[in-house]
């Protein structure tokens, strides 16, 4: 079975990791923004493409992420999802994905 992978970075993020991750649910850990950056994003590519951009929710799994939660959001396409932030702290999230139409 093909699993999701981290495939892209933008802004001040250069490191991220997926744990126990599938195209339906998993854990994402993202490094803190590097100095001089006020925005960063990380993109994950699904193991298999969806027919329509799927619906993604997330929840913080650390105190530091919770305190940054007002600065984190998610977007998706049929083949990827992207977590964006304009907060400098380390991010650790649970994500869940449901297909739509």
């Amino acid at each position, binding site marked *: 079975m093909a699993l999701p992978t981290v495939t892209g970075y933008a802004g001040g993020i250069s490191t991220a990791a997926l744990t126990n991750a599938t195209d339906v649910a998993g854990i994402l850990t993202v490094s803190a923004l590097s100095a001089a950056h006020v925005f960063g994003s990380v993109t994950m590519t699904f193991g298999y493409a969806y027919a329509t951009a799927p619906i993604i929710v997330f929840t913080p799994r650390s105190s530091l992420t919770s305190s940054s939660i007002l*600065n984190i959001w998610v977007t998706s396409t049929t083949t990827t999802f992207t977590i964006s932030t304009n907060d400098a702290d380390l991010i650790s999230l649970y994500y869940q994905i449901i297909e739509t139409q």
Partner: protein
Amino acid sequence: MALPTIAIGAGSTAVAITNATDVAGNLSITTKVTAGIAATITFGYAYNDIGGGLSAAQIIITPTNAAAALDMNKIYVSSTTTTTFDLSIKAGCAASAHTYTYHIIETQAGNGSGSFPGLSYGGVPAWASAVVTQGTDVAGRITIPMKTTAGSVTITFGYPYAVAPIVTFTALNVDTAVDIGKIWVTSTTTNFTLNFGAGMASKDIFLMYHIIETQ
């Protein structure tokens, strides 16, 4: 197939729903700065629980743009029925387009058979009055009388998972939304723990949770 619809409320100036079903979808809400119901979503089909009577579904929302993220301490699910749910805003939201995703999982009203989640507590013994309602190992609601000191509440699954599952939650009242930046969740194969940082208001926290197995 009947699909959900969205109606504007007093707390917004425009609303839209896209790629939406009774299970998941996208919401766009142009919020006002004043408090009120921002939108009411009506399901294509009513939720219910044949075994235990009528039961409202469990709903999770997540921001998909920066404006929505910034106001996550001012937006919450204010009402749920078997046929609708309301999103409300607290005063002070930015008057701008907020976009969200939502997930919906059906649950049960009555624990007629099988093993259901139980509760244990860490940090503050007075939290022993926390209550799980409509709770299964997949979705449910938790009410916790909050203290200003840090602590946690652990919910033990009725049946263990093979791998620690993925847990999400959403605020179900305004007091929970206000303190959303002090709440996080962790899980093991046998339980999940809601953690609370110091400095929360002494109000009732009311959350909905979803759990999905992973590998």
